[in-house]
């Protein structure tokens, strides 16, 4: 083939350009790039608690204990319900006897009988693990037994935890405890074994009032994601910077 210098330079430039473009295309097809693209459309479990709907029946706590084999009689629980009563003279009474496992059947917050006419406001607040975006428990675990799944749920490997309690100390929400039988760190994991099979968590299923809901924040069609995006929700103890993924509707400033 005849090829003068000008032709050679032209073809050479085109070849270089084509190679550059194709290498760029390969760059785009890198697995991590693809994974990152997919991640945006992936799965991130999130919880919504509507405090205006909770009646403090404790069915959720009972269901959780039975579902997750936390001995029923023990004074620890993966989830609990708090009762807040603010009296007209400004007193704030808060309690959660036995984690509200048996519900609130008496009008005696903190052992004080309060007359109906003395109450300024009263409500219930269900609590559970916040499955934080920046979980301090994962940060401090010395062996990596507490870890975060790609879908945001913080899990505990019971076979690897040494039981030092550092994660319990690090959690600002006090949701962690030692399992009475396994003697390792224990916490709510959004019923991971259920949600992975397309089921709801035990507490969501047990709540007859729709105060608890679980969903995927990355799915725009998800009703839970829509609540978070369109309604006024709040998280607990935002100042710790843990970026909780349990959102509350009707959260009051007196909630601890």
């Amino acid at each position: 083939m005849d090829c003068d210098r000008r032709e050679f330079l032209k073809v050479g430039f085109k070849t270089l350009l084509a190679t550059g473009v194709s290498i760029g295309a390969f760059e785009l097809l890198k697995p991590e790039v693809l994974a990152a693209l997919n991640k945006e459309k992936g799965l991130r479990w999130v919880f919504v608690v509507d405090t205006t709907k909770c009646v403090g029946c404790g069915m959720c706590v009972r269901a959780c204990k039975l579902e997750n084999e936390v001995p029923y009689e023990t004074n620890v629980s993966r989830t609990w319900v708090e009762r807040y009563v603010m009296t007209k003279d400004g007193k704030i009474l808060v309690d959660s006897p036995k984690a509200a496992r048996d519900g609130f059947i008496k009008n005696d917050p903190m052992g004080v009988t309060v007359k109906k006419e003395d109450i300024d406001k009263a409500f219930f607040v269900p609590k559970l693990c916040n499955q934080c975006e920046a979980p301090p428990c994962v940060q401090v675990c010395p062996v990596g037994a507490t870890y975060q799944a790609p879908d945001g749920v913080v899990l505990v490997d019971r076979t690897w935890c040494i039981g030092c309690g550092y994660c319990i100390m690090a959690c600002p929400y006090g949701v962690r405890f030692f399992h009475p039988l396994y003697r390792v760190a224990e916490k709510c994991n959004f019923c991971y074994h259920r949600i992975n099979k397309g089921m709801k968590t035990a507490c969501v299923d047990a709540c007859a009032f729709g105060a608890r809901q679980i969903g995927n924040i990355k799915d725009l069609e998800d009703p839970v994601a829509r609540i978070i995006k369109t309604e006024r929700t709040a998280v607990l103890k935002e100042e710790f910077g843990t970026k909780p993924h349990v959102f509350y509707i009707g959260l009051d400033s007196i909630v601890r």
Partner: protein
Amino acid sequence: MEVHGELWTLKEFFVYPNEYIYWSIQIVMYPFMTGLVAGAFVLSSLYHVFGRKELKDMAKFSLTFSYALLLAAPMPLLFHIQKPLRGFNVFFTPHFTSAIAAFGVVFFAYAAIVASEIWFVNRKFFIESAINLKNASGLGNRLKGLVYRAWTLGSYDISEEALKKDERAAKILAGVGIPTACFLHGYAGFIFGSVKANALWMTPLMPVIFIMSAIVSGIALCMLTYIIIMEAKKVRILRKRKPWMISVEEIRSVEIDIVKSTTKYLIFFMIMAISLELLDLVFRGYTALKHWDILRTVIYERDFINIFVIQYGIGTLLPLIIFLIPGLTIKRAMVGLFLVLVGVFMMRWNVVIGGQAFSLTLSGYMDYIMPIIPRNLETLKEGLVGALTIMALPYIFLWMLNKFIPVIDK
């Protein structure tokens, strides 16, 4: 069925259902013992690095004692963790965002430095002992000779030049050891200081406060143990009454000289420690963040006796007065040193237990009732018996080390 922590926790007002005093006496013992290690090493380094000749005897003793303490330092953690057999998991899958995971690295690095320094300081003794015991009779002596021969590492050079090299090596190791010792204890402070969920612990000053009080406690324990050993020596000499032995008067004069000079360093570090602690307290009150209300009730009301009476009054102010009154005697020094140790122990107690005395709700309290009589394995490990066992351990290790390494020359 009781859950962990329930046996010794008393709750008051609104506390989350899962909250208990999870870090009990063994987590008080852990920084206390680690602090003693760091302090003993810093004391020995005053001679090796800074050339304080008057501390030569004390330095040699505190170096070996530091190693004995180091062997005991991880024991409180093993007593505390719920799955002690999994303790090695920390080394298998260290999670370096965790302060506890750094322990393995810092601990072994520090242990290697101290062991090497002990070797260089005592190399001449090891070689001489190996030679002396080469043809010794009796199984015990033969075994001892074997250990010394192994420790010579095949080198029998004790020329002046070689010994000078040893001295230089010990000096370098002591120099490297000081920041490592401070890091070892600084990170123990970091374990607490970095827990953002705890309003009392959450301060960047925590590691520095821990280092200062560590040096104080280490110096105090070394001095106290040194005095006890010397006193025991005097009693033995008085019993035997051999004319060629060193006289009790000679030991007494050496002892008081060393105690007086070491006390000066102790006072300096005590002033540093108390200044930092008070600075932290004043700063918290001045800034008065959201959690200050409950902190104030714990510090000035519920823990007032523990903090202001025992820690600051009996454990800091009183010993300072004892040391600063002219004409220090051995007996007076012993009382002062014991009180210093009580003060530092109470500082650890007030941090660890005081930090858990208030709930994360910031509206409830918890009390730790230390188990005195064990009811089960848990109350045995995390009660008085467990704490006393940990306290006795370094002395058992020191006794064992003393069989092979001369702890005190004279």
